[in-house]
């Protein structure tokens, strides 16, 4: 079987579900003949026709808003935004409507929508093309927020997202769209949502990261291993609702934790993870949880993006600091 990239796994999942379910409609800017700016919908229009794979006029509010109407009528819209930096006009519909229809109508109407967007920095893109503002969505009641970090998880989680009866924000880490290849059988098997994945087992410290930041996190874990520190690496994958249990189970072993994300630190998702660890697992900790994040600045143009993004060195340094603190307490 051929090995495929993360973005090809997205295409494979879309094609699988369009084949299986005539209610699935894929649309967005340039998703048709062009296959989307990252080619995530490549070949779908040819295969499924322009009645199901539609190029829209350039209007993000509209892209988000019509999904609500389609979904309440029983379709399964999968809407693409070209970049997360252009999703802000759509927030109104996601926040004011998609996430609320089920509750607002006490279950009469629901919004089984997937809003897809490539996100994150590191591809030398122009301004507004490198955003990582997932915390905006995580705060909104009624949504699911899913971030895959490998081809297999992109395939399995996207299938789950399309099949889910509620709205899902599906953020694709574009920096690793083509970084890894993996065999991903087109089995139609979804992966569970609301469930974290342990990517690497270890007994000395728990590292929590998602999306492209896992690349540096796993690299850091290898370096640390050479230094005799065994890091457990957890990919929450569904950022909301968050599977805190898997994290706590890990802390039972490691008693130390670092959270890594590209997004700005202030009110970033790391803050929520740390708060929940404090609430549920304070006694397990041997040191305060550290965060390694983007800075509380505007995402810089690409000449400085390497300085902005949390790199391996920053992760390793944070791990050492946490470990030293724990040792200093004589535990």
């Amino acid at each position: 079987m051929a090995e495929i990239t993360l973005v090809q796994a997205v295409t494979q999942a879309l094609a699988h579900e369009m084949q299986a379910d005539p209610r699935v409609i894929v649309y967005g800017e340039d998703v048709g003949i062009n296959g989307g700016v990252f080619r995530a919908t490549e070949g779908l229009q040819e295969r499924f026709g322009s009645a199901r794979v539609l190029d829209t006029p350039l209007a993000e509010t509209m892209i988000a808003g019509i999904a609500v109407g389609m979904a309440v009528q029983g379709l399964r819209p999968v809407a693409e935004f070209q970049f997360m930096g252009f999703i802000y006009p759509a927030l109104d519909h996601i926040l004011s409507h998609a996430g609320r229809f089920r509750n607002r109508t006490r279950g009469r109407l629901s919004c089984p929508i997937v809003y897809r967007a490539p996100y994150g920095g590191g591809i030398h893109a122009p301004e507004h093309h490198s955003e990582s503002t997932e915390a905006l969505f995580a705060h909104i009641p009624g949504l699911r927020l899913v971030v895959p970090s490998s081809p297999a998880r992109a395939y399995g989680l996207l299938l789950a997202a399309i099949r889910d009866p509620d709205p899902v924000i599906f953020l694709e880490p574009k920096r690793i769209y083509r970084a890894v290849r993996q065999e991903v059988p087109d089995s139609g098997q979804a992966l569970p949502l609301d469930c974290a994945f342990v990517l690497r087992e270890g007994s000395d410290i728990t590292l929590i990261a998602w999306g492209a930041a896992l690349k540096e996190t796993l690299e850091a874990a290898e370096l640390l291993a050479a230094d005799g520190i065994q890091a457990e690496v957890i990919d929450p994958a569904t950022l909301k609702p968050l599977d805190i249990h898997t994290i706590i189970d890990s802390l039972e072993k490691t008693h130390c934790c670092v959270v890594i994300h590209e997004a700005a630190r202030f009110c970033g998702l790391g803050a929520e993870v740390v708060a929940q660890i404090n609430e549920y697992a304070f006694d397990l900790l041997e040191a305060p949880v550290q965060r390694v994040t983007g800075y509380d600045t505007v995402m810089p143009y690409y000449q400085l993006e390497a300085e902005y993004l949390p790199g391996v060195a920053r992760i390793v340094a944070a791990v050492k600091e946490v470990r030293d603190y724990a040792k200093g307490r004589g535990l």
Partner: protein
Amino acid sequence: MHKPRMQPLASFDIASLQYLDERGQTTQTLPDFATPDSLIAHYRQMSLARMVDGRAVKMQRTGQLGTYPSSLGQEAIGVGVGAAMGEEDVYCPNYRETGALLERGVAIEEIYAIWGGDERGQNFRHAREDLPLSVPIATQILHGAGVAFALKYKNAHLNEPARVAVASGGDGATSRGDFYEAINLAGDWKLPLVVVINNNQWAISLPRSEQTACKTLAQKAIAAGIPGLQVDGNDVIAVRQAVSDAVVLARNGGGPSLIEAVSYRLCDHTTADDASRYQSEETLRAAWSREPLVRLRTYLDGAGLWGDNQEEELQRELTQILEQGVRNYRETPRDAATAMFDHLYATLPEAFLEQYQQLQGGD
């Protein structure tokens, strides 16, 4: 100074439609649907809308309802829209649509529940596929475009009958991108969508004249490449005819339309507003002389179809219906506190269980 020579490329007209003038006189031959029975039925529904509205304001004043947006003066639009739609069509309302909701079969107690702060009111027992009221301005017009897409798709590919989406909004809604993005897409994709603008002359305190430099709101259709028509929104016959034509056009694959129904808000914006701060008594008085109920009543009287006896009988009947609705609303027990979690997701994720139990335990 050199004045360049230019060639006209396109020109447009905006038409308006009226059957009954301000004195209740016909201005042209009435359409076929305007039989005595149907006109009396419209008069009845408009009267009911006015009573439901009036009671809502009273109940708000006595703490039995929250903030309520009255549709006093717009009854002909709501009833005309509701009557022009097929039962199977899908309505996407803004919040000032008591008349249309009643016409769609939404129960009085459901309307009161919504404004009484109870989501269960939006779980319509009839009109199950109609959208709930939308408080954010104009967003529902985009939902209407999405609904229209789904209806067209299901008709073409899943063997479902041809149906139409109808979305309403106020004059203020036409200033928002959502409105324009919706009609632009609907025109582009030839969606079965009818957008009805209740031009009641005010967006809270902003008069229509300061909302836009456009002479009519109907002409906004031109930018989207779709038909636009202005109707006398105080003339239920004109509203029903215009919406009905647009619905038939959409059902037959002819694409979307925009209808501007010109009316007047004879009340405060909501019970939390005081319209005397921004509108003059003369303007209001003049508007009362054009209002839709008296207009139809005068016509019916003149045609020998109505009189004081019928009016008394109708008021008695509607009062009973209203009182029953009020009772049903008052007697509905409060929703369980945990209901706020029950419909947040199809299945409550485990991550919320602790909060759910906290609410259940009341601590």
